């Protein structure tokens, strides 16, 4: 929380300084490590999947790959109703791809590694489950999401 480790946009000071993509979801700011972000796409209507998890909006065609679209606001229990999203953040981790539906993408930030603190205990367990840490700097408190934990489950029981 001290100014010793400020968040600065695109600061080229240190090599391998962690970068995050910040975005807006149901009026709140979140971020994802830039290493898990593959690309950002404009919205296209997904084809719904039968009997699937309600936060799975469906699938879209990403240049020949079938990409599941996850309603992040629903997944994190930020809003009850399905939100109207405009942007899809395509994330890749563990050899799998998924698209996160968000309101809008804000910025790319570089932060000092010591600005990252472990996730606090949260009342909203849905957020807590998807969180890998918090960036605390310049009086801001930015939750860092863990893309792996928000991906569709590989071997879930069929609903």
């Amino acid at each position, binding site marked *: 929380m001290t100014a010793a480790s400020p968040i600065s946009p695109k600061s080229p000071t240190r090599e391998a300084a962690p970068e995050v993509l910040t975005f807006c979801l149901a009026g709140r700011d979140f971020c994802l490590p830039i290493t898990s972000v593959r690309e950002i796409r404009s919205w296209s209507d997904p084809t719904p999947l039968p009997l699937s998890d309600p936060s799975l909006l469906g*699938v879209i*065609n990403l240049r020949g790959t079938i990409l599941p679209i996850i309603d992040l606001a629903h997944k994190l229990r930020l809003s009850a109703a399905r939100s109207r999203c405009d942007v899809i953040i395509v994330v890749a981790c563990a050899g*799998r791809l998924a698209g996160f539906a968000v309101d809008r993408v804000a910025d790319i930030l570089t932060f000092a590694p010591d600005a990252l603190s472990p996730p606090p205990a949260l009342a909203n367990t849905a957020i807590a489950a998807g969180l890998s840490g918090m960036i605390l700097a310049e009086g801001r408190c930015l939750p860092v999401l863990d893309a792996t934990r928000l991906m569709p489950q590989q*071997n879930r029981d069929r609903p």
Partner: protein
Amino acid sequence: MTQTDDPLAAIRTSFFQECEELLEQLADALADPAFAATAPDQVNAAFRAVHSVKGGAASFELDQLSAFAHRFENTFDDLRAGRRRVDPALMRRILPAADHLSFLIEAARAGRTCVDRSDLLQALDQSENPASGDWFIRFRPTAALYATGNEPLHILNALLELGDARIDLSTETLPHLSDINPEEGYLSWQLRLPGTIAEQALRDCFDFVEDVCDLQITRAVGPALSQAKATADARRSAPAAGDGPTVRIDLDRIDRLMNLVGELVIGQSMLEQTIAPALANSHSPARTAFDTLTSLTSDLQDSVMAIRAQPVKPLFQRMSRILRDAAAVAGKEATIRFLGEMTEVDRSIIEGLTEPLTHMIRNAVDHGLEKPADRRALGKPTCGTVTLSAAHRVGRVLIELFDDGAGIDRARVRAVAVDRGLIDHDQRLTDAETDALLFHPGFSTAQAVTSLSGRGVGLDVVRAALSRLGGRITIESQPGQGTRFQLSLPLTLAVTDGMALRSGGQILLLPLASIRETVRVRGADIRRLDDGTELMQIRGQLVSLCDVAAVLGLPESTPHHDHSVAVLVADEDGRQAALIVDEIIDQRQVVIKGLRTNCGPVAGIAAATILGDGRVALILDPGDMVRRAGSPAVPPSETERLAG
């Protein structure tokens, strides 16, 4: 490792890839019945394979591998020269040696050393029954031979003219370079020649040098092998079996090509929609050009598909090794038989099948086949047979594993299941339901059943592995006759012919191969059972109805079936269901896109495809739909569990 920058590393990698092919060729040759008759083609193929491994291994200084391959190769060299013949005893020794060769290769690849199994080679040498009557010659020139201007090479060449000879050079007495006296002779040769050659002819070769060398000519006892020369001649005349030249391609590149072709097809259909007016006239230049493009795209697609697909043969061959190991450990006799091993399946499926099949083969040997004595008592051949077969069925690959063993001991399975609390003591089960218990996760983990379920890894693991591939497994057993496992797998990444349907406001595709017929639904044809199951009479046959939109929970399902269309589908086992949809759109070829990697399993859906407008459409899984149609009262997860 640290060798990534090493240019040799790439060559090394390609050597090991080549080794895989060579092992396959070796296994092929050995499995060929003609090999047992010492047919020159097969013996040569085996020799070439081992020889190439040896050569490569030596150049990478993989000493353990090259030494083993060298001695192993000698056996084949003897065979192809007709100095030995293949008999069952030799066969039993060759196969473990071939297995060990593959272990050595694996070890060398991993940079490990392997257990020394020179006993295998000794066994090969011991079983050596050289063609009786062969000539053995020891030839050791003295310095005088060289001093008189004689050349051992001429003598050896002269001997070779007489018949196919095995010549071994002995350098045992060769001193260090600094100690060599150039006037002295240090080398000696051991030769073996077919017994059909007259002794005088041999002696004639040494005519001028007999007094300046140590020479022993001896003859093995017993009748001479008359075929030796004939076999050797046949070998010379037989051209080396050569397949066309090949290149090795990184799988990623093929996948990229594959995706691009898929995109091309989509781009083409987008173009078709855009320029539809110009194409309307079937004689217009645009139409002609477009048709040419279409047929080229389709050819391109087929060609890429063919690159990606591979025959299941290498997989099956690997299983024969596993079978031998398992049989040796269990003290049983077993052979493996392949059917349809040239069936082509996508590479990813083949890779994913290795683990479950390995377990199933072990399972078949451990628990399926009886001990040789028991088999004899039952009037069966002492050697059990495990049959692995592959075939294409209804747009899927069907792999069957059949053992002619004792079949499933249902009383015991039942006892174990009751013991484990999986079923009630007095619960009635059909035979099929009893057999299905073997797949229950709770079944195999119990200590009490290790002798039945093997290494603590149960069939539930096999089923889970298959399910990850989008496959299903069923079991069928006849007491005393054997057990048959049927694995049904998708041909992922293939193009399929599908019927486009509209249901619940969505376009869905149904694999054409699963469709029997389509009929218009009339309310009067529908019968309703007490449990809510709906049946429809089609050509006098009652088939359960399945409203696609309702079963899949699609948003716009229509409650009334009147005026909708029923598509009669059948799964791999021939069970049928009538799928109710709103409309049939058309029939088209679609590129199958996997859903599973990114989305996990999806109920009732096998895969997805991309429509002309770039949107995703789902491809129905007919088998899953049939199962869902059959038992609407049972929750889907339950059906899944029971059906395996």
